[in-house]
């Protein structure tokens, strides 16, 4: 069937899996498709031998030597690209093939890039951004003329992000250049795998290959010795350190996953304090560390030298570390797929057991141990929602083509209609995007000096070198905060921290980073020069982002567990039995709701009057729901609230007492007019404003500057909030401005999910409890430090409030 794989598998003394043979067969038939199989079972080989087979059985490539690029392999991570390169290179070497494979990522040097242009290898392993950069160069159409394969690795990861849209656009564009192009995706299991295939291949004839192999998985919850002493709130879980350190010794190599970089720094520091013997045997790995440090840690993992690595999602994907046989998840994993992916980092060889421990960071979170087991048993897994109508990326793509060979409007329009993201874009909307880049807007301005894209003989192109260069530097869909580079005096680069964090520190101050205390020597431009110190005190940078909400399916499984509380012990999971005293206390102070009840609590503290509601729908839905309820209350009484949410419920906090009872609550949770009411909430605008930052950056409104010389462009910078206001006032029909609102409804508020939640609640009985003291359920929300502002008052009442708070006349 596949001659190369037969020889190679025979030499390795391996037998191909069924899914591998199915994939080879499908590729040999010229099909596109999506492959879904667990990690560690040879997914790469399944696609790669199909690609090789095509190359050597196609006279076009065999006749003329050294012609054009044959395959593009796209991965979401640079680290992963290296892994793929090694794996595929090995096959070429083993079989003595002249099929050349090279890397093309952000790290590739200019001279290598030029070589790759003039004399392309057979395959390039690359990232979505690098493919767009290739499309931004002159002559790219000839370059891709004979490209037969695009392989997208970890498609599930890309699909739910704007980077997935970059992939969709690249495929549509290259398919136009070469209609023979075949698309192959590789994906972990997700809830909408069929849709994932359709979005990627856009071909009803494409196939979905699913492996039947199930990985063995063990999930264990780490219980505190004494429930009473375990805190009711918190994100760290450090108190359970004495349970984690023995795991490090018991196992070969343990990966300890935290949800934020801040947590990972603390855990690293605390483990070393707890057990200094581990010094030199454990390491830290997160997204803000320099590549050099991270690569070093990864190498050490490969060699099996390290006992443990404390990491964040930076180690979620890709690369096999064979020595890893244990994973610890600190705090809620927030998603079933993410949890499974992390679990899968252990026991990588076929047939091995994946072992994961769940460490709750506060007592109520122990429930999630049971939820995870339930979700895995029931096969619950999230869907990935693809982005649609991302006009910011459409504008970016127009610019990409305009800086290369230019484009014709009608041709490009037909091309983008082929993508899932832009299939519903109307001619009118497309023309609005064209107008933005050619005349800077939809209205005509007198005396204008707008320069970006010009039209010559129906071809849209960029003639200014400066604009072309700026655009090439801004390609991509990841928007990062303004970061400061941390380095030693000698110049060694350690990593980056947010400017906001450094702005609070002075020279001579000590902070923890890369797992050790560093003293600030001086701060200049965007560099912080530091030296190691023995001083113990110091703050740890907390990076923004990284706090993701739980997914809907995970929320469902958590809700399910709360509904089991009142069952008899023998039907309950060990986690719920363990938590029994906490639930008793909840019952004493408040109430434990039944399956068809919604608990609402009201309590006065020194901060004001709190209303707690527990729909267990996840943070995002709660945010919207809270805004709606706040709005509806304010319709009846003049009042303003601040909102706090977590994944279990939400809180409305007011400085003034307000009237509330079961009847009123029943009205407040009416499923009618949700869309209107949420729009009346100030939050929607605030949310749109926040999201507009990414949109402004992707579409080229904000230019973050040339590498190393940020200052030069300062006169062209304004914060996205100002841009947002200008659009709001002068051009509210602008597509980018409207996109911000669309994204709020689809991704922030998840309006459809929220409507379902309101409908569910409307069938429930509302249990209203006025509390003397905060209940165990309410405490984690109460102490949630991230709050959003909601106010229905005019500025005058807000001013009065400030004055009152500040104690001024």
């Amino acid at each position, binding site marked *: 069937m596949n001659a190369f794989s037969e020889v190679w598998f025979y030499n390795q003394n391996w037998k191909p899996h069924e899914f591998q043979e199915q994939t080879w067969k499908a590729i040999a038939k010229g099909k596109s498709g999506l492959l879904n199989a667990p990690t560690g079972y040879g997914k790469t080989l399944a696609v790669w031998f199909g690609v090789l087979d095509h190359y050597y059985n196609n006279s076009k490539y065999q006749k003329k030597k050294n012609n054009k690029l044959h395959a593009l392999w796209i991965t979401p991570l640079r680290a992963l690209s290296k892994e793929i390169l090694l794996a595929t290179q090995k096959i070429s070497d083993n079989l003595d093939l002249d099929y050349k494979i090279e890397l093309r990522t952000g790290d590739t040097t200019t001279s290598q890039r030029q070589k790759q242009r003039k004399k392309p290898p057979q395959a390039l392993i690359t990232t979505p951004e690098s493919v767009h950069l290739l499309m931004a160069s002159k002559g790219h159409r000839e370059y891709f003329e004979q490209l037969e394969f695009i392989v997208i690795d970890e498609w599930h990861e890309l699909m739910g992000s704007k980077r997935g849209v970059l992939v969709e656009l690249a495929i549509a564009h290259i398919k136009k250049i070469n209609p023979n192009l075949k698309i192959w995706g590789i994906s972990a299991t997700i809830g909408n795998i069929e849709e994932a295939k359709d979005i990627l291949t856009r071909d009803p004839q494409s196939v979905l290959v699913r492996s039947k192999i199930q990985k063995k998985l063990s999930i264990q919850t780490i219980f505190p010795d004494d429930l009473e002493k375990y805190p009711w709130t918190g994100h760290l879980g450090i108190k359970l350190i004495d349970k984690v350190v023995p795991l490090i010794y018991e196992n070969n190599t343990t990966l300890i996953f935290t949800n934020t970089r801040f947590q990972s720094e603390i855990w690293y520091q605390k483990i070393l304090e707890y057990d200094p013997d581990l010094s030199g045997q454990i390491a830290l790995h997160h997204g803000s560390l320099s590549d050099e440090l991270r690569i070093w840690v990864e190498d050490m993992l490969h060699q099996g030298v390290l006992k443990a690595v404390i990491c964040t999602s930076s180690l979620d994907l890709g690369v096999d570390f064979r020595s890893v046989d244990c994973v610890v998840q600190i705090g809620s994993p927030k998603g079933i797929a993410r949890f499974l992916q992390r679990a899968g980092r252990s026991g990588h060889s076929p047939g091995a057991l994946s072992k994961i421990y769940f460490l709750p960071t506060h007592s109520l979170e122990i429930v999630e141990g049971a939820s995870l087991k339930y979700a895995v048993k029931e096969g619950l897994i999230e869907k990935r929602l693809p982005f649609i109508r991302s006009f910011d990326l459409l504008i970016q793509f127009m610019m990409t083509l305009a800086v290369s060979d230019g484009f014709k409007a009608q041709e490009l329009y037909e091309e983008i209609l082929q993508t899932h993201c832009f299939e519903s874009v109307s001619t009118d909307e497309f023309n609005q995007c064209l107008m933005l880049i050619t005349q*800077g807007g939809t209205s005509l*301005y007198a005396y204008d000096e707008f320069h970006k894209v010009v039209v010559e003989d129906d071809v849209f192109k960029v003639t200014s070198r400066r604009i072309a260069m700026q655009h090439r530097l801004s390609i991509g869909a990841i928007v990062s905060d303004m970061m400061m580079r941390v380095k030693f005096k000698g110049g060694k680069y350690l990593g980056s921290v947010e400017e906001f964090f450094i702005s609070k520190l002075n020279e001579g101050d000590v902070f923890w980073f890369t797992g050790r205390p560093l003293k600030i020597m001086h701060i200049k431009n965007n560099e912080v020069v530091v030296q190691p110190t023995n001083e113990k005190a110091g703050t740890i940078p907390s990076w923004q982002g990284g706090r993701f909400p739980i997914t809907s399916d995970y929320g469902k499984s958590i809700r399910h567990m709360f509904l089991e509380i009142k069952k008899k012990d023998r039907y309950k999971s060990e986690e719920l039995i363990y938590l029994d005293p906490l639930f008793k206390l909840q019952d004493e102070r408040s109430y434990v709701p039944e399956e068809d009840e919604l608990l609402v609590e009201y309590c006065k503290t020194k901060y004001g009057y709190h209303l707690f509601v527990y729909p267990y729908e996840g943070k995002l839905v709660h945010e919207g729901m809270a805004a709606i309820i706040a709005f509806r209350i304010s319709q009846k009484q003049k009042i303003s609230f601040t909102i706090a949410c977590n994944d279990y419920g939400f809180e409305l906090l007011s400085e003034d007492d307000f009237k509330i009872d079961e009847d009123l609550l029943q009205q407040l949770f009416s499923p009618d007019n949700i869309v209107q009411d949420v729009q009346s909430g100030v939050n929607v605008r605030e949310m749109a404003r926040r999201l507009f930052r990414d949109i402004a950056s992707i579409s080229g409104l904000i230019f973050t500057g040339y590498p190393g010389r940020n200052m030069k462009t300062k006169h062209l910078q*304004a914060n996205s909030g100002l841009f947002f206001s200008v659009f709001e006032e002068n051009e509210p029909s602008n597509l980018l401005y409207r996109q911000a609102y669309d994204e709020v409804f689809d991704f922030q508020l998840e309006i459809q999910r929220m409507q379902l939640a309101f409908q569910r609640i409307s069938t429930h009985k509302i249990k209203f409890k006025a509390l003397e003291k905060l209940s165990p359920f309410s405490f984690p929300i109460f102490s949630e430090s991230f709050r959003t502002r909601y106010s229905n008052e005019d500025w005058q009442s807000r001013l009065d409030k400030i004055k009152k708070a500040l104690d001024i006349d």
Partner: protein
Amino acid sequence: MEKKYKSITLGSTEVWLLSDCAMYIPFDESLIIADWHLGKTAHFRKFGIFVPKTSLDKEFEQLVTLVATYPVQRVIFLGDLFHSEWNMDWDLFLDALEQFFDIEFVLTLGNHDILDFQQYEMEHLKIVKKFEVNSDILLSHQPLKRVPENQYNIVGHVHPGIELRTKSKQRFRLPCFYIKDKVVTLPAFGAMTGLYILDKADADACYAIMGTEVFMVPK
């Protein structure tokens, strides 16, 4: 009509901190405006950033309103009047100034005012480095190095703002007048300008603006 300003005394001179992000000195009927950054959107557009153009008329209205509200003999712009090098907006602006033939206009040069002023005939806009009012007030774009003991230096440049928190954990970011070591920093007048948040604890005094009211921020 509610009070739209707060009166304070600098040395022996009374000044009004206006809720319109400007200062008024009744003594010689001077209006002081810092960091207008006119034509910022036009400047952005020139560099290919497709922000909609804000109309100059609309921006100019702010000034018209102030001049109509207070008896004004002189307007002093504390620098960064324009955001960019010369463009059509400049001409329009200078033309517009001529409507106020009985008002003297002065500009203390700022870092964004990169225009070579000598090139243009500007009868209605006097350009200076610094400007003195009533002997105890000195106006400039950025704080001056040597200010006589008895003088207050009134400046712009940083676009000062202050962050306030209320009991129910709400946060407000408001433009402010910031006074420290006899330097009075005015908020930016322009709409397309951000806020640079300063620490109220460091100030000798700080007055925040919310809506049409100016109030002192306690430490």
